[in-house]
């Protein structure tokens, strides 16, 4: 039974009834379907594939898209879904983020009508799974340097290159692959896993996001029909626009992981007795709990504000960088503190905080590292691009 309300600022009052219903629905789903099984998957290093259909049936995939069988929710409701999913596990949230923000979004934004009609309804129902191939072994923070090439040959494009650290790579039916053309522009392709010259390999030995599928795409004279090229891309700007979508969801998601760690730490502090008192009676523990609550409240307000601006079409990538950078960094800090408060128990899979902590070590790296977002904001402030 909860005897204090972590929503100290009544942020709930800033949400509409349907936004709350959406959040509570995903909350219940995660409690019932994700939490009981996620530790086992994490230990075994497997993605809980059986949840894919359930997540799709809920309408979570592409939930902020209108039409094509999608729920057509606003961005705040979508963000709340990401928060609740990541309360369960960053890996489960990553699956949904990639499918929605990095696969469905680019098809919606840069695809032809035929591509939208062919792929979006099936992606929403999870009849097909997608992945997003931007990062390469030698080009992470600097995707502009990518080596993957596309060359037009008759009615086909021939792709060559390697994409690494790709979420869903091994389970994907299609990959959105970004490659450089002969004019030095970046093009986007919908690549079918059955294409000649396409291979996906799982990266097994991870210490983070263990309940998520991460892999490599190897493209060796990979043949892609012309009609699978995304017609309306604008070079590197387009994959970066996709990242802005996914980063927005991550800013919410990180607070979900933080909330789960916080609630676990509070519970533990009240029940764990040392020196004849619950450890929550010690000032140093209280100080840590207070820090967590402060940062969660601030992070949630930040995500909510960006969400409202996104819904009003007044948002930009710098705001999203601010929210992603702050919220992931604070969530990671909170997870580390929770781990500490739980003492030796905190290192086991019986508790959630260390799993969240290890996961967030990936979340702080992907979708623009902490440093990269710092430099985006540095550029926003000074007008000087530190990347050049």
């Amino acid at each position, binding site marked *: 039974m*909860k*005897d204090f309300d972590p929503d100290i600022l009544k942020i709930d009052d800033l949400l509409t009834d*349907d936004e709350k219903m959406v959040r509570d*629905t995903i909350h219940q789903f995660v409690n019932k379907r994700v939490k009981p099984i996620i530790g086992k998957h994490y230990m075994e290093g497997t993605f809980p594939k059986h949840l894919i259909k359930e997540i799709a049936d*809920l309408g*979570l995939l592409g939930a902020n898209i209108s039409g094509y069988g999608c*729920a*057509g929710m606003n961005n705040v*409701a979508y963000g709340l*879904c990401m928060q609740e999913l990541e309360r369960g596990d960053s890996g489960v949230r990553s699956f949904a983020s990639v499918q929605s923000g990095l696969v469905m979004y680019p098809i919606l934004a840069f695809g032809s009508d035929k591509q939208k009609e062919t792929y979006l309804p099936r992606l929403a129902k999870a009849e097909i799974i997608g992945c997003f191939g931007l990062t390469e072994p030698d080009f992470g923070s600097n995707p502009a340097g990518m080596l993957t090439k596309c060359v037009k040959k008759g009615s086909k494009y021939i792709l060559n290159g390697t994409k690494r650290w790709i979420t869903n790579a091994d389970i994907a039916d299609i990959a959105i692959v970004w490659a450089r053309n002969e004019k030095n522009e970046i093009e986007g392709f919908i690549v079918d896993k059955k294409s000649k010259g396409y291979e996906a390999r799982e990266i097994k030995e991870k210490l983070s996001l263990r309940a998520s599928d991460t892999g490599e795409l190897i493209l060796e004279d990979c043949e892609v029909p012309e009609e699978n090229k995304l017609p309306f891309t604008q070079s590197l700007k387009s994959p970066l626009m996709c990242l802005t979508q996914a980063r927005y969801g991550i800013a919410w998601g990180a607070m979900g992981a933080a909330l789960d760690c916080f609630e676990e730490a509070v519970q533990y502090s009240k029940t764990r007795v040392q020196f004849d008192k619950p450890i929550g009676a010690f000032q140093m523990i209280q100080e840590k709990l207070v820090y967590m609550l402060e940062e969660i409240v601030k992070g949630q307000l930040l995500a909510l504000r960006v969400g409202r601006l996104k819904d009003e079409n007044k948002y930009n990538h710098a705001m999203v960088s601010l929210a992603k950078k702050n919220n992931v960094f604070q969530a990671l800090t909170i997870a580390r503190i929770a781990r500490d408060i739980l003492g030796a128990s905190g290192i086991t899979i019986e508790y959630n905080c260390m799993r969240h902590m290890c996961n967030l070590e990936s979340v702080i790296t992907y979708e623009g590292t902490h440093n990269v977002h710092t430099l985006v904001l540095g550029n926003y402030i000074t007008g000087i691009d530190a990347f050049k």
Partner: protein
Amino acid sequence: MKIIVCVKRTPDTTTQIRVKPDKSGIEQDIEWILNPYDELAVEEALKLKEKNGGIVTAISLDPDANNSVLRRCLAMGVDEACLLKGGKNYDSYSVAKLLADEIKQREYNLVLFGKQAIDDDNYQVPSMVATLLDVPWVSVVTKVEVNGDSVCATRQIEGGEEIMETKFPCVISCQRGLNEPRYPSLKGIMLAKKKEIPVKEIASLPESVAVTGHEAPSPRPPGRIVGEGSGAVKELVRLLKEEAKVL
């Protein structure tokens, strides 16, 4: 097939209930949910509709005209909802009368209820509604099979099951085990948002019961550690048998 489901808003089972200072009731600023047994009824209605076609209507009587549980029903897939405003301090008969008066104005094959509301646990409304409608009813049902216009319902009885057959129109009250209620889908929530929920001011009946007070249960006695390790098992079993009398 036309199905009516009657649903009630009840306090969340995990919410902390506080009695009002004047003891006239409980504080209202708590979490409320769709009565879990009614949720089974909604799920069953939706399943029957998916199989046999038709239309599902949810009706709720709510003293504060709060439509949150009806929104949830719509989000789960119910076609239309109707809110009856009123019913404070009504006894089961008055509630049943108001519901039956509403249902009589509608066409229906089947009326579904939860077997009880988890707040005041009266178990009476479904059977009273059936009586007022003058239709057969089966209560505490764990399985429903429809064949044309006949219904086969399995009900729980002490130590076993009873299988009953009846014809439409009829009333059924639902018991746990009947089904696993679905989550509202996000699309359902968005669609529900667009639907109007008409509110009907109902004829006010005289308050049939006067609530003279509420008392919170006395606090539970604190737990006790009997001992540690396997040595404590014997004592624990003894206490469970002799003191707690649960074994």
